[in-house]
């Protein structure tokens, strides 16, 4: 499992419009070459925003993914609304032993 790889993929969707178009047209092909596990691949193929949030995707990358995949913002937010409070986004330095992210 590689959150980094998921986010690397979404980042590319955001900065390469041609790659985003390819993902919309041939999603499996666009994902080839990324070292993703089955859950990550499934979530990215399905547009499963709740799964992406659970695995720790950065909120801005959630929006970038939604835009690349043409998921309307209200629909994106509807999917993740039940997950309020699941993750704490902190800039404050974490205390020793505390996990900044609760997956």
């Amino acid at each position, binding site marked *: 499992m590689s959150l980094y790889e998921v986010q690397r993929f979404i980042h590319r969707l*955001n900065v390469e419009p041609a790659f985003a178009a390819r993902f919309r047209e041939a999603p499996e092909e666009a994902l080839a070459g990324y070292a993703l596990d089955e859950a990550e691949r499934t979530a990215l193929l399905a547009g499963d925003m709740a799964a992406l949030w659970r695995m720790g995707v*950065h909120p801005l990358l959630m929006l970038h993914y939604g835009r690349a995949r043409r998921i309307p913002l209200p629909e994106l937010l509807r999917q993740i609304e039940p997950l309020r409070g699941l993750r704490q*986004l902190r800039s404050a330095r974490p205390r020793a032993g505390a996990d900044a992210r609760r997956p």
Partner: protein
Amino acid sequence: MGEIVAAILCSHAPGIAVYPAPEEKRQRVLAGFAQARALLEAARPEVILAVSCEHFVNFNVDNFPAFCLGIGAAHYGPVEDTLGIPVGDVPGHPEFARLVLETAYDGDVEPAFSEHLLLDHGTSLPLHYLNPARDIPVVPLLQNCLVPPLPRLARCYRLGQLIRQAIDAWRGRVALVGTGGLSHSPGAPESGYIDEAFDHEFLTLLERGDAAAIVAIPDERIDRAGFGTWEIRQWVTVLGAVPERKGRVLVYEPVPSWLTGCAVAVLE
């Protein structure tokens, strides 16, 4: 000696341009930008130093600078094709940018630098409202307000002081624009939650000109207002350049459908 002829602070939420909102709220926010634009035009700057933040456009977590200054002859943006804003080259100002960069290094703050920065809504949206003709060269400064660890508020303030030193050593007329915030959590399940109490406290400190109190705001307090609130760093950097000025808030409007507590202010 150079002169800071305007210092404008504002939100940069893409919603302002594209998402629906109650018409009176939209009009109030746009009127705030129009007031700031009039001030900017009257000030006749030769260059705008625009402080915004990175949003996973130029950088990803494989390489993420705390600060990056655009020193090129041109930048490009906005990268989003959904804002209804013209996309294309934005003129830079390499000479002034180099001076800012060298002055920062002399002062022991070392921003990364780029000959060709990509701009997004963070810079392009406010500048679309403030200088729609795009005829004033722009030096963009991007700060990391996205992936902790973030530059500390005091470090942003220090960089602002060094920007002031660079302008003092220059000969031209400079406008400072700082964009981001206030309370918001875009893309999180908490999207649409706006911590109005935080926003009012922050704007009150700005109006008092209490930079020390702003720099001392605890990270935990900012976190509670939502991760997008980390973007007040841009306001702090600009404040560092004009610590003798006080804020005048042109508009504050919490707009849940824009997912943001939206403000436009000037330091004078």
